[in-house]
């Protein structure tokens, strides 16, 4: 028999059992597209988390004041007091002898205020810090000037404002530089506009107002010795861990405690990045496993359909053998059928998978991993061919009369 004859017989076999064929294709399609989509989602969320963390800057430490009590265990009942981050800490950390790997330290006071300009108002977070804050947090200016340390010393009421604040307070095209806005009821002059960093998902870094911490303390939060956090910029991301231990020793000394009992949280961006990377790769593996299971379930579905129709097909094989089909001819027919069905199912699955990954899923833009296509398609074809051929081979080995009697 020619290839064309085999092909025609296979096509006839497929179209003659439309429901069975459709279910087989569907099982493979779902499995294949699930693998492609889920792996792409895992992949995409890994990439986006990495991007976000890279945006945060990978060579900073954040020392957070958690409001815990410090100075070690109370000597007598009255000496315990809240641990604070003070200007002394900042000076110590900026001292190159004590902390050679620290480039800059920016103390931060923060609050939330309603910013108003004319009739427009917008609720924003206000960050009071020093000049080094902008570079430590990777802010750049799209226009105007950054706040300076001189303005910090002089308690100037000047602000750099984020792009979101600009768009909510000012008319399009209006230049905010030099304008005066109110934070709460206090007037601040806009000296610079920050370039957009894009939403990081965690916090909106474009909805921010940055002012000298002295002015913020004077006008908004009230004077306090203490800062809510310190942003410590390391000299490089490779020496960030050294900088971290230097900062820890300084804080342990000033708070009269050990490093292990520090009353502050220190967030190391570099280690955050690697943790996040491993978390998201765990996510990808997990999603991949779910997808693999769905492919397996699809495969079992295919197997089921093939086995369920074995009665009908066994009789058919009996008839074919009775009128002279050889075992080889029957196997070739079923191989053709199985290959065709699984190619169709696999190809449709890849198609649907590619379409499915075009859409954002829960804010994540899926990124297709080529290996997942090859793997899913390959597994689908192997499953289809194996479970298509296995029952056929059994039936084709029967004597015609036994195959005809089978039910």
């Amino acid at each position, binding site marked *: 028999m020619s290839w064309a004859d085999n092909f025609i017989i296979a096509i006839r076999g497929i179209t003659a059992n439309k429901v069975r064929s459709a279910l087989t294709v569907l099982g493979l399609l779902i499995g294949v597209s699930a693998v492609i989509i889920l792996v792409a989602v895992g992949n995409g969320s890994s990439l986006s988390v990495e991007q976000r963390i890279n945006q945060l800057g990978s060579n900073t430490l954040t020392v957070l004041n958690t409001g815990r009590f410090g100075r070690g265990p109370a000597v007598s009942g009255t000496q315990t007091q809240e641990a604070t981050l003070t200007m002394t800490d900042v000076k110590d950390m900026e001292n190159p002898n004590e902390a050679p790997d620290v480039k800059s330290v920016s103390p931060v006071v923060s609050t939330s205020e309603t910013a108003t300009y004319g009739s427009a108002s917008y609720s924003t977070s206000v960050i009071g810090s020093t000049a080094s804050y902008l570079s430590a947090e990777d802010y750049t200016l799209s226009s105007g000037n950054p706040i300076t340390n001189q303005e910090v010393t002089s308690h100037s009421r000047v602000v750099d404002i984020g792009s979101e604040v600009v768009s909510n307070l000012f008319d399009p095209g209006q230049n905010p530089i030099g304008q005066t806005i109110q934070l709460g009821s206090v007037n601040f002059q806009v000296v610079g506009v920050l370039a957009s960093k894009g939403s990081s998902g965690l916090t909106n870094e474009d909805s921010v107002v940055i002012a000298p911490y002295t002015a913020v303390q004077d006008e908004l939060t009230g004077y306090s010795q203490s800062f809510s956090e310190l942003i410590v910029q390391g000299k490089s991301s490779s020496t960030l861990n050294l900088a971290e231990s230097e900062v820890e020793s300084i804080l342990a000394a000033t708070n009269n405690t050990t490093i292990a009992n520090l009353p502050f949280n220190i967030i190391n961006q570099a280690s955050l990045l690697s943790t996040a990377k491993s978390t998201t790769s765990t996510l990808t593996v997990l999603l991949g496993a779910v997808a693999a299971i769905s492919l397996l379930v699809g495969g079992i579905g295919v197997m089921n359909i093939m086995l369920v129709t074995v009665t009908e097909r066994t009789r058919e094989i009996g008839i074919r053998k009775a009128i002279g089909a050889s075992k080889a001819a029957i196997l070739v027919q079923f191989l053709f059928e199985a290959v065709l069905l699984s190619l169709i199912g696999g190809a449709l699955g890849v198609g649907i998978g590619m379409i499915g990954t075009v859409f954002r899923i829960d804010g994540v833009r899926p990124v297709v991993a080529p290996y997942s296509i090859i793997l899913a398609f390959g597994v689908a074809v192997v499953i289809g061919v194996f479970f298509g051929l296995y029952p056929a081979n059994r039936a084709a080995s029967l004597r*015609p*009369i036994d195959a005809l009697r089978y039910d």
Partner: protein
Amino acid sequence: MTSTLTEPKAAKAAKSSKPVIVLRNIRKTYMMGHVAVEVLRGISMTIDPGDFAAIMGASGSGKSTTMHIIGCLDVPSRGYYWLDGIDVRSLTDEDLSKIRNRKIGFVFQSFNLIPRLSVLANVELPLTYQGVKKQERRERAVAALSATGMSHRLIHMPTELSGGEQQRVAVARAVVTNPSILLADEPTGNLPSHQSAEVMNIFSQLNAEGRTVILVTHEEDIAEHAKRIIRIQDGMVVRDTRSLPVDALPPRLDASSKKTASRPISARLADGSSPPHGLLLNTDTPSESISRDSK
């Protein structure tokens, strides 16, 4: 009680005197749970080429089982079966497929059409497995279907046909390959008399051309088309009567009733196909794929 008693010595060519089918002491046992049921209890018969035999017997006497063994669809539990002088036990699965495909045409008692293929596709199928080209395949299948009066139902599905119509399609499928041996298990069981007569006339004409025909029937007047009646009872041959010699024309051949009678039926079924005998197993037809030498 064997056929040789009543058989006149064949006066024809030496080739045709050699029996085409020899069964010796065929036994068939089925296991029903743990009980062995012996369905055939020593069947022996010899069929010469060109013979036209009717097998008769009560229901359950083992007629179909015997036919399946002759048709190489089943194997005996014990005993010997020589087809064209070759012990079928020595043949491979592959050889048996070729024999079923080219040498033997089989009409099943229960038709056994493939339910999801059209009438035409069903009848074409044996030719497909022979590797016949599409165009010729179609022509021959249509010819066979018109010979059984079914050419008006080409694209119907078997389930859309009456029992009698399915039977005629099954007959068409058996004769489409122009086989040298035609085995028919109650081929007229579901047919009204005029259609039975047509189907029997096809068999008679094929037999008149020298093809061997064996059919199973319950009806005496169908059996009268044959030259010989073999009666089976409880898995044994109890009577074997010959009414005409092997090389005689079939008794009820009605060539005149056919519009196309000027051409032999085999020519109408298949132009230029193989000769009726020695189709597969004889060394003098090397074009066929199985020969004794290859064994």
